[in-house]
């Protein structure tokens, strides 16, 4: 199998004599390690599986067909939802992207589904004409068009693969709860590493700039200031970034406001306030006052931006809503960041 390591396949012979690769439904150690690694953003672009048809258990021409994406994390979830069941898995080519995102882009879509049904000759492998498509694939699929173009009827399965056994045992009926997407603590927490890494490079660049510029002073450059003021600035910036990247997702329901940028700004204001209190003995000189004011502007700008970017990972934000909040938030973040940086720089020279 071209998809390489991890999924060990042997084949199964269908009722009409075709060979179809068979995979175990139980995840092995390599699968679990792979799933863990993508959560840390390691090699997620290569975490794919060859599109096509796979057998799970001992399927016959009557066994159900499950449709999945060729992102291995999605595929593995489906596998573990099917432990103890026999069936066929039709893997669409979604360019290695999960079902929901791919459905939004249309790669997990009617056209790809219909052409994949034909290319694997699904009609010859199974005798029935039913497909179980994950509900989150629905943004890309038109059930009635699939029926028209392929003869296969789409049944929308539950949102989460772990509900599949109950769905199958209940005669392919999903309960209200199986149809709903929520965003509980555990789901938010696993997204933190990938979120932090996504802007990490930019933040480290900004930190390096602060470190170098901290040495500036009236009439020269001081290496001692780099060590004292520069390191302090880097610590403040990185702390703010980490706080927003971790506390934003973790405390999402409890942070005030509905807009993510507002939720993020509150984290920044809290950090700024703590910083202001901590450095109060220093407020006597103008350079210290400028410094505090500068951070009061820069920190919320950073934290607001970071949490605003978590909209993409969340499960309930609309494009119209994101656009509306960005129309106000992005200019505000830019003004605060630029003004704050200006004050911070000016503080070197007074």
């Amino acid at each position, binding site marked *: 199998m071209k998809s390489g390591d991890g999924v060990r396949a042997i084949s199964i012979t269908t009722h009409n004599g075709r060979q179809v690769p068979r995979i175990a439904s139980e995840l092995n150690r390599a699968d679990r390690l792979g799933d863990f690694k993508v959560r840390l953003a390691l090699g997620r672009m290569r975490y794919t599986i060859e599109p096509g048809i796979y057998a799970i258990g001992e399927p016959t021409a009557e066994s159900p067909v499950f449709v999945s994406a060729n992102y291995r994390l999605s595929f593995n979830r489906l596998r573990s939802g099917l432990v103890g069941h026999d069936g066929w898995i039709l893997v669409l080519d979604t360019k290695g992207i999960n079902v929901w995102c791919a459905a939004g882009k249309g790669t997990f879509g009617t056209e790809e589904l219909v052409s994949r049904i034909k290319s694997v000759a699904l009609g010859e492998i199974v005798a029935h004409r039913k497909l179980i498509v994950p509900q989150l694939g629905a943004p890309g699929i038109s059930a009635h068009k699939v029926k028209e173009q392929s003869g296969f009827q789409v049944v*929308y399965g539950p949102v989460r693969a772990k509900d599949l056994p109950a769905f199958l045992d209940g005669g392919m009926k999903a309960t209200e709860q199986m149809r709903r997407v929520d965003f509980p603590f555990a789901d938010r927490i696993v997204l933190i590493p990938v979120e932090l890494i996504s802007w990490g490079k930019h933040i480290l660049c900004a930190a390096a700039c602060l470190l170098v510029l901290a040495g500036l002073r009236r009439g020269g450059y001081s290496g001692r200031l780099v060590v004292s003021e520069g390191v302090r600035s880097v610590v403040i910036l990185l702390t703010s970034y980490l706080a927003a990247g971790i506390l934003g997702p973790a405390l999402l329901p409890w942070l005030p406001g509905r807009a993510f940028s507002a939720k993020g700004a509150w984290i920044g204001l809290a950090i700024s306030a703590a910083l202001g209190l901590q450095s109060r003995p220093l407020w006597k000189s103008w350079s210290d006052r400028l410094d505090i004011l500068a951070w009061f502007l820069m920190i919320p700008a950073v934290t607001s931006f970071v949490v605003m970017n978590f909209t993409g990972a969340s499960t309930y934000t*609309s494009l119209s809503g994101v656009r509306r909040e960005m129309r106000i938030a992005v200019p505000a973040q830019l003004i605060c960041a630029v003004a704050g940086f200006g004050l911070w720089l000016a503080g070197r020279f007074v």
Partner: protein
Amino acid sequence: MGRLQYLKNVVTLKLDVAKCTGCQRCAEVCPHGVFAIENKKARLIDLDSCMECGACQNNCPADAISVGAGVGCAQAVINGFLRRTGPDCDCSGTCCD
């Protein structure tokens, strides 16, 4: 903890009840319980929870639903702005996994 709710009065979802045939597909595919079926017609019962994923529109055989579907992702809006295209999420699975 209450249910997480996003901004109010902003989504573009529209339902043309006259065209609705009561097939219930919209209520089935919606991940946020926006629709209910009453007297064999769909009704919007929680419009503000809509995330504009477009599932209902795509699966409505009567063409009774319209929504400016897209991904509610700030990064995608930024990408679209910088490249002067529409919102483009090249998250490659980082977003919603």
